[in-house]
């Protein structure tokens, strides 16, 4: 197992994702003799995990779970939050718009909980490298440890420094740079010098429009071009079967109503009870994330 390469079977030392339900997954470090408690009962690593294939079903005392091979996307929904994190919807857009691919050299700050970092490493492996800068020392140490556990440590360098003061610690090597810090405008110059002289792409993520305005001004001042600010929101559709009652318009309309019911039945609808039709539909959750942040992209010209 590695976060950048699939394996068939679960081995000791792997990090596996225990899938309980769509909104409940937990990462587990597989260790001989260890046990993990879930709401469906205990998982014994030696018997239930090691040597089994990824994707297997594990029977517990109160039900069963599936063990999944880790991916950056599963990690994003199951990682321990130490900060606000970036989610897959934004990450997808960042990856495409920064033109990441195997071999890309990327700079990132702040590392935070490492949600984006894992996705970047996956995309630039096996020949690329991520230089990620985290201001907060404990967090820098913790994420470094995770990269090792996830067997991607060789493709990433974590630096514990202030990107606004000290930059990314590299110069003229990066194809892309990403900023998720309170004052990105202070780091635009550093991003510029970290990027290759032939040019490159940069992205800044900010929740507030004032941050976007200052950052765009800084990009322009530093000669960046192709400025583009976007926002992307995910809409999840829950598939549901609902029953809609059919009202009674009175005795004289029996013929009429029967006709209607016939038509209803031919149109993907089954009569579940007298006076009601069942339809398949989708609903959106009552409250959804309405804003994560603005993504501003720019191209560094040749310097």
């Amino acid at each position, binding site marked *: 197992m590695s976060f950048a390469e699939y394996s068939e079977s679960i081995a000791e030392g792997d990090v596996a994702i225990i899938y309980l339900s769509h909104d409940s997954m937990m990462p587990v470090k597989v260790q001989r003799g260890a046990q993990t408690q879930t709401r469906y009962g205990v998982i014994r690593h030696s018997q239930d995990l090691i040597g089994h294939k990824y994707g297997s079903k594990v029977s517990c005392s109160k039900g069963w779970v599936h063990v999944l091979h880790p991916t950056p996307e599963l990690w994003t929904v199951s990682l321990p939050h130490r*900060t*606000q994190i970036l989610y897959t919807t934004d990450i997808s857009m960042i990856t495409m718009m920064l033109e990441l691919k195997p071999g890309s050299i990327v700079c990132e700050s*702040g590392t935070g909980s490492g949600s984006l970092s894992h996705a970047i490493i996956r995309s630039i492996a096996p020949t690329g490298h991520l230089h990620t800068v*985290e*201001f*907060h020392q*404990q*967090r820098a140490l913790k994420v470094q440890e995770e990269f090792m556990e996830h067997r991607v440590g060789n493709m990433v360098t974590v630096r514990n420094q202030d990107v606004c003061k000290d930059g990314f610690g590299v110069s003229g090597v990066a194809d892309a740079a990403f900023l998720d*810090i*309170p004052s990105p405008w202070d780091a635009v110059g550093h991003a510029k010098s970290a990027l290759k002289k032939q040019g490159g792409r940069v992205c800044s993520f*900010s*929740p*507030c*429009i*004032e*941050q976007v305005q200052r950052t765009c001004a800084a990009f322009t001042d530093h000669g960046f071009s192709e400025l583009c600010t976007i*926002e992307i929101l995910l*809409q999840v559709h829950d598939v549901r079967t*609902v029953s*809609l*009652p*059919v*009202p*009674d*318009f*009175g*005795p*004289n*309309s029996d013929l*009429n*109503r029967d006709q*209607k019911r016939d038509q*209803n039945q031919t*149109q993907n609808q089954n009569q579940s009870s*007298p*006076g*009601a*039709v069942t*339809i*398949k*539909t989708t*609903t*959106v*959750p*009552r*409250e*959804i*994330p*309405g*804003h994560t942040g*603005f993504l501003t992209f720019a191209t560094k010209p040749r310097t």
Partner: protein
Amino acid sequence: IMADNGDDDSQYRMKEGDYVVLKRGDIFKAAQIVAKKKVIFEKQWFFLDNAVGHLYNSTFEIHSGQLQLKKTSDTGGSADSKEAAGVDNRNIVDDGKSQKLTRDDIEMLKEKGLKGQEIIQQLIDNSSTFKDKTEYAQDKYIKKKKKKYENSVTLLKPSCRILAMMYHGREPGKICHLRYDTLAQMLTLANIHAGSKVVVFETCAGLVLGAVMERMGGFGSVVQMYPGGGPVRAGVDSFGFPAHFHHTLHEFPLCRVNALLNGTLEAAGKDPGNSRAVQRNSVWRPELLTLRARSQRSQRRGRRRDEQEKKQRLDERRKKLSAAAAVLEGRNADGLVIASRFHPCPVLMGLLPLLAPSRPFVVYSQYKEPLVECYSKLKEQGGTVNLQLTNTWLRHYQVLPNRTHPVLLMSGGGGYLLSGTTVASGPSKPGQSKPCFSNCRTCDSAV
């Protein structure tokens, strides 16, 4: 602030019996000012008696279950206590020592008589990490603390705006998840205005009916079509309309619509359809009852349920029925508004013949698919133009210096609308096929 130059303020002051809406932050609750009647709001109970004589929009503190007018200076938005947010929380170390105030300190502040908001400000001032929290975390912190310490409440005059927001926030299930902006669209798409004759079918606790009545201002007539045993409109009471508004309101059972359209309503007389419908459809019980209705009922309750009373009620119902029938039988209604838990397609097809030609209709559904069916049916059947299937997408913004952004949580779905305009069917040129069945009735009868 209450001293002013003798203007006519009476309509702006709260009286006993008035319907009001309690507000704290984004939380609303409808209530009626009744002497010595306890209300429960956000897990606190109190009496509204002291509100009488004060102006609407006044904010009160709750002290020992009694309202006490708040000084105006502290009435303010919930965002006031936000300091410049850290946006990033990279400096926060969670050592459990961030709050310098102890529980005893807080109890002391309370005893000193500090108000909820003041206590929260104290907590913020004494939190070493608050300033470094991300804005999202600051929000969460304030909300949590507010829930614990806030004890003020504002009393609002009810309106469609406030009640629609209240229902959407508190009990969306009761109004078929109809979001307030969708209701706003319905009222314009159906061209609701004074002096018109509007047919309403809703199972939204009376909110939609009340909204229509508010826009008609007591001019014209509204017919509420109802399924089952009787109309449900507890929500209408919350609007606190003057009595004469209710004279414009009629009710008519869905199960008599065919009889009405066939001209067999009189013959049907004893109304077997109605009682059958009562059995078939579950009857919705109004949760709120007007004070008057309740006291009347309690008088009646006892053992005396004799024949005479039954007959009286039947007579009353028959009178109501024929009054409503008189309004409808011209088939010249000016607007049709549907928002129900029923399948919209048969409802729309059943009620459309009641409209005059060149009149708007609008149908709400929480789901898109049934309206697609409606749309196809109408296209196939003819008799309508200007059909449009839509939904709206509503976004709130936080506008604060250096912290402006769309609100982090938004409502997922506000439901769907199908709207259109009825037309008469005339001679269509050969080769231009646009069949028309049911609505021919409409135009013929309306001549």
